[in-house]
């Protein structure tokens, strides 16, 4: 519906900076025009943040690209009843006018900071260019602006760092540089497309803080595109939930978490691991997001909806407006859906259990896997003769054990060495020192033949289901490979076994002749799990198995893993950066920082009562699915980046970033200390700390704990 506009009318504060009504985007494909975004409407007021939420394929990124005018007419067709920015019709602008507007009045930041900067120019140069494209000023002035902006986005020593090339910047710093570039012309609207998805949680917390601060200072509006409802709770004022190219719900952030009106929103919320009781199966949205060429005629969510009725499938569903909220659901007036019960869940957390105090209480009884003092130093070669000039100590003296049927969660940010630990345990990488015992056999001492035999006992599932399956091999070949290699199964026997495995992981046995590219991410991860299970291993190493999956698929795979564990009595080494996922699935948690385990204990203990400042900071950085609490709580935001493992800090490796650091921390390595709840922690606060600093250790808890 196009309403007549009063040209030249005075715009008051309530006039939206961005108005989108009936936005439709079609792409020409070989199979004809494919409509990937349909009838999307939302408005962004001045100074407001609108969150655009959805899984991959929901059309959220395409919608934001369309608003930016970044979809060329050759590739796709953008239509809208209204697409107005600051009162101007965006669709009526020619290419030159659009270019002038992009980067000056509206700017965009992208997900991948690693590829968004040009590696052959210095960071300062690239920001300068952004100034000079839109403003008439000298190179010197532009340089001064660039440095000033880099300083504002929190790049220390901005004057010097502006002369660095992008490769000298860490991921978080590159994203800061991208933000500096986007904001240098003081745009009125910033479109941020998953700007923190590729970053660690502690860096994500920094970036979100930064965006909030800059937004307050400039009064700019933000469209924040993300799949993470926790981030939405932190930053958005209004939320647009998208599913299969349509807006299904558009409402305020409090309403989304307090009283969602669309079953899909509710499904997304309740499948968050933070909102489930630890150990219980996660709520799952069955099935997967359909492709645009297979969208249902009626309600597009209906095939996956628990509240679906025949009337839902009859005809396309129009959006209903109730008060300030809009919902695209046939049954919107009859359904009352539960919201986020995160607060209640946190309050019912168990009290401190009486655990035996003493040595080794964190070790598992009846250990299947025993890892002692595992270390890996990668040599750094340089020069003409490729001589060794140094080493990266990726893993430095790591010890843990996993009991039969137990899950140990290994948590850490990128660069902590957790994935190297996974490969060391399996001896996919040869350790420099240390010992790995699996069920009484010393894995680290085996010869090639012995190693091959023991590999049937332990298997690994990798993070990226796209690169972990050979694109040229059929599913039967991939899943059947361990059976061929170890059991000599061939032809029909092998295929029968593969079919059984596929059904075990919830896939149809008819898929054996297909190739990996025909499957979605979640399905591929199931295939990888089937391959890992083929030899009936006792230990499964799961290296970030769900972090590249969509929210709804993620909970399906976690549930599958928990079922398989219960059924086969498997032990898991579950590696992840997401503490809330790990808390859900793991019995015990080990937290790694710069190649060392800093804290290890029962998962509820570690999660609710962290004893190491790093664990506390990690927990505090996780966005909370509750806007009221998320914004009020006091957070421990870590400064800076993880130092390079090439030259780790002396003493406690965390001390340069630690809010509780004492003199001794810079000098001496902390010894492991067993607390009364059985958590093993390597931190001076628990031994020297309270006496030297005069601050009790419980400070940690009050800093992170509930408000």
């Amino acid at each position, binding site marked *: 519906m196009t309403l007549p506009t009063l040209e030249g009318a005075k715009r008051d504060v309530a006039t939206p900076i961005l108005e989108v009504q009936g936005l439709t985007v079609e792409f020409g494909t070989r199979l004809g025009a494919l409509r990937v975004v349909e009838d999307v409407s939302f408005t962004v007021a001045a100074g407001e943040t609108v969150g655009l939420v959805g899984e991959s394929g929901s059309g959220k*990124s395409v919608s934001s690209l369309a608003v930016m005018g970044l979809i060329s007419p050759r590739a796709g067709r953008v239509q809208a009843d209204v697409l107005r920015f600051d009162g101007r019709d965006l669709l009526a602008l020619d290419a030159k006018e659009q270019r002038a507007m992009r980067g000056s009045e509206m700017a965009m930041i992208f997900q991948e900071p690693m590829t968004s900067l040009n590696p052959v120019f210095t960071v300062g140069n690239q920001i300068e260019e952004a100034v000079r494209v839109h403003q008439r000023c000298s190179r010197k002035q532009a340089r001064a602006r660039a440095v000033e902006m880099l300083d504002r986005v929190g790049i220390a020593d901005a004057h010097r760092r502006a002369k660095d090339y992008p490769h000298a910047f860490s991921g978080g710093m590159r994203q800061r540089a991208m933000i500096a570039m986007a904001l240098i012309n003081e745009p009125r609207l910033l479109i941020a497309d998953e700007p923190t998805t590729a970053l660690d949680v502690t860096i994500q917390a920094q970036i979100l803080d930064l965006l909030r601060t800059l937004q307050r200072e400039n009064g700019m509006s933000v469209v924040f595109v993300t799949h993470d409802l926790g981030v939405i709770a932190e930053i958005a004022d209004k939320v647009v939930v998208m599913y299969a190219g349509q807006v299904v719900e558009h409402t305020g952030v409090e309403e989304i978490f307090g009283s969602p009106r669309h079953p899909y929103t509710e499904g997304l919320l309740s499948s968050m691991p933070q909102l489930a009781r630890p150990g219980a199966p996660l709520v799952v949205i069955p099935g997967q997001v359909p*492709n645009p060429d297979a969208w249902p005629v009626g309600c597009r969510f209906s095939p996956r909806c628990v509240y679906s009725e025949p009337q839902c499938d009859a005809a396309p569903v129009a959006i209903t407006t109730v008060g300030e909220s809009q919902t695209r659901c046939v049954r919107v007036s009859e359904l009352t859906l539960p919201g986020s019960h995160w607060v209640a869940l946190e309050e019912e957390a168990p009290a401190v259990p009486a655990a035996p105090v003493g040595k080794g209480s964190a070790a598992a009884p009846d250990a299947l896997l025993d890892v002692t003092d595992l270390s890996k130093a990668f040599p750094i070669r340089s020069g003409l003769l490729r001589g060794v000039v140094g080493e990266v100590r990726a893993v430095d003296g790591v010890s843990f054990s996993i009991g039969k049927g137990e899950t140990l969660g290994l948590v850490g940010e990128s660069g902590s060495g957790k994935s190297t630990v996974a490969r060391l345990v399996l001896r996919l990488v040869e350790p420099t020192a240390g010992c790995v015992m699996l069920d009484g056999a010393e894995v680290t001492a085996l010869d090639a033949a012995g190693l091959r035999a023991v590999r049937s006992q332990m298997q690994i599932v*990798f993070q*990226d289901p796209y690169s972990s399956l050979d694109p040229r*091999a059929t599913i039967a*070949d991939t899943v059947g490979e361990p059976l061929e290699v170890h059991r000599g199964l061939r032809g029909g026997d092998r295929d029968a076994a593969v079919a059984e495995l596929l059904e075990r992981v919830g896939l149809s046995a008819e898929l054996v002749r297909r190739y990996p*590219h025909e499957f979605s991410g979640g399905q591929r991860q199931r295939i990888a799990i089937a391959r890992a299970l083929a*030899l009936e291993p006792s230990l499964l190493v799961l290296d970030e198995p769900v972090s590249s999956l969509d929210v709804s698929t993620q909970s399906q795979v976690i549930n599958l893993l928990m079922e398989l564990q219960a059924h086969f009595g498997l032990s898991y080494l579950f590696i992840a950066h997401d503490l809330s996922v790990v808390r859900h699935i793991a019995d015990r948690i080990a937290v790694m920082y710069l190649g060392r385990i800093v804290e290890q204990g029962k998962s509820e203990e570690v999660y609710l009562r962290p004893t190491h400042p790093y664990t506390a900071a990690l927990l505090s950085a996780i966005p909370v699915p509750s806007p009221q609490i998320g914004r009020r709580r006091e957070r421990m935001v870590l400064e800076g980046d993880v130092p390079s493992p090439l030259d780790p800090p002396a003493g406690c490796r965390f001390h340069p970033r630690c809010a509780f650091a004492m003199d001794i921390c810079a000098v001496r390595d902390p010894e492991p200390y067993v607390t009364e709840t059985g958590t093993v922690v390597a931190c001076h606060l628990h031994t020297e700390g309270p006496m030297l600093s005069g601050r009790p250790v419980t400070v940690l808890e009050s800093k992170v704990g509930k408000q």
Partner: protein
Amino acid sequence: MSFEMEPAIAADQITDEAFAIETGVGTIVEDPWRRVRRRFVHNKAAMAGLVIITLLLLVAVFAPLIAPYDPTATNVGPINAGPSAQHPLGTDSIGHDLLSQLVYAARASLSVAFIVVILASLAALPLGLTSGYFGRWIGGGIDWLMSALFTFPPLTLALAVAALLGPSLINSAIAVAIVFVPGIVRLIRSQVLAVREETFIEASRSIGVGSPRMIRKHVFPNTISPFIVQAALLMGYAIGAEAGLSFLGLGIQPPKVSWGSMLQNGYSTINETQWPLIPPVIAILLAILSFNLIGDGLRDALGRESFRVNE
């Protein structure tokens, strides 16, 4: 220092495949080989190349039916004559019928092209695969050897080999094949080095798959597409190289003819008539151009999207 340049897809260059990869939307499922065939068939230039090569092959196979005269027979008509009804392409200085010669020469020239590429591949594939797959010593050693071969100017190397083996059709093929080996080894090696780092290789290793099976089942199939492109392009180069060697007298020996030896004959009488040079030149150009068109078409059809290791 080297920069890895992999620009994000510019938003105004979104094609349907790129779009699907970027967004995960509309990933249209199609068998990769069928997609390759569809793209190749839609490429007019590549199809033209394929048609010409097919025609040339048919001519070579059915040479006895097409050639009006015995190609070795002399004085079948007037010497140094232009085209006429009896001799559509004329005759040379000793009265060979040029059409008959051209038709039979296609046999020699085309078969040399195939023999060269097959020989070079047989030697280079195992070398490339092992040098890429096995780390520092074996890989480095093979690579060093290839670098040494590379330092010879190609024509000099081919001349030396051909001279050493003695002039004949098969020896000239061997000489050209040796010149081609280091290029293919390098190509395969670089591809293997990339594939080796893929997670699915690590996944197979974690299962206990040994090196021979790994190379056969996982590495080789993922290196094949750039190799196919290269093979098509090398066919063209091989025809040129054979022509060069034969022109210098190191290739096919009379009374047999190839396009290269026809050039030599024509060149020797260039002061009397230029006519005999024209048919073999056109044949050589046509064949090289067609193989290049096919190679380019294959490269586009096998493009990044359809055979990216990491699709």
